């Protein structure tokens, strides 16, 4: 259902709901959490696997919660070593952490139901009215950097294994270790980038390219109206 939705519509929905989350109250947050759970169920995503992939972020949220609970002044619930946990602090910390958690889940839902290439074309479409930004070149750069990432990771692994084979991991000097990992990596990838430039030039690359096509599934209006109602109710509740 979400997979087939037009990516531009999905992107707008995500922005709208995320923005309205930032001013939502506890009840609205729980309500939205239920809505999100419904969509996770519908799209067939495993919520536990998803939570596992953002476990460090959740750890960070606990940290925010603790910091808020300790820092805010109010009616003290209990105290130790001069630090007092306040009621206002607990409420506030919970609310802030919960909001971030939900915005994060929304983003995850978006990125797991959307192909990177369609994200790229959506970005290009949204940048079109912005002046002084060559949206086509930006789109090309996005897809280039996406395709560079696995290449760099592979070469980083190669370089670090080559270093290990030469006992490079016994080197104690951290500066030398950074240099010996990064320098070969940069040199290698820049050389392959040079070949890419040549290849693109010889194929007469120019910024003047065909625009990407979008295939709306026909339910966009329904979903968009739904998300407008949802975000309005999140703000008002």
């Amino acid at each position: 259902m979400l997979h087939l939705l037009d990516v531009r519509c999905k992107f707008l929905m995500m922005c709208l709901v995320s923005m309205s989350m930032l001013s939502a109250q506890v009840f609205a947050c729980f309500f939205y959490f239920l809505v999100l759970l419904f969509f996770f169920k519908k799209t067939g995503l495993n919520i536990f696997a998803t939570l596992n992939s953002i476990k460090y972020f959740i750890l960070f949220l606990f940290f925010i919660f603790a910091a808020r609970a300790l820092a805010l002044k109010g009616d003290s619930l209990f105290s130790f070593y001069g630090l007092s946990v306040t009621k206002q602090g607990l409420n506030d910390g919970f609310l802030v952490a919960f909001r971030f958690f939900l915005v994060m889940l929304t983003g995850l839902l978006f990125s797991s139901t959307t192909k990177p290439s369609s994200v790229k074309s959506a970005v290009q479409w949204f940048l079109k009215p912005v002046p002084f930004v060559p949206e086509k070149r930006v789109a090309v750069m996005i897809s280039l950097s996406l395709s560079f990432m696995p290449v760099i990771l592979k070469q980083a692994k190669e370089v670090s294994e080559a270093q290990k084979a030469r006992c490079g991991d016994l080197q104690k000097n951290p500066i030398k270790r950074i240099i010996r990992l990064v320098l070969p990596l940069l040199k290698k990838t820049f050389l392959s980038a040079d070949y890419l430039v040549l290849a693109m030039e010889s194929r007469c690359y120019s910024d003047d390219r065909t625009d990407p096509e979008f295939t709306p599934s026909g339910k966009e209006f329904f979903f968009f109206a739904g998300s407008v109602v949802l975000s309005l109710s999140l703000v008002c509740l």
Partner: protein
Amino acid sequence: MNNSKQLKMTVYTSLFVAFIAIGAFISIPIGPVPIVLQNMFVLLAAIILGPVWGLACVAIYLLIGLAGLPVFAGGTSGIGKLFGPTGGYLLGYLPCVFVTAGISKGLGKKMSSDIIAMVIGSLIIYAAGVPWLKVVTAMTYGKALAVGMYPFLIGDVLKIIAAAFIAKTLRPVIKL
């Protein structure tokens, strides 16, 4: 700027975007806190690409993350991360890259000027990141500094020195 040069810069800039995104995952285990190379790549992008393309590089990185592709630290993305507790560091990359590249260009591309530029650039990242962290978590400045700046300083010094060497060796190879 002719077409060929522009194409070259386009490809190099997207290469650095990929490096910044990957930099969050490549870490070198030294001591208790592993050194993450992301901000080193931001600084390198600044001093190698120059102000305009460097700024474009970081802007595209943030744009990709904002648009929901998993390029931020820990494979995360989206508005939640950009406006979350550590968002200040990410947004701080923008002024950092511009100022670093400007200083490095203005002082002439020497190793000493690179180091000065990168030190100032790193300070800009913290100047954006630490107050942001303070506002989001409602900590005092002392605590925010202790959590969000002091543990990384030693690593930053090492990274800046390494980056200066790397930039010196890389410039003749890239020939911009």
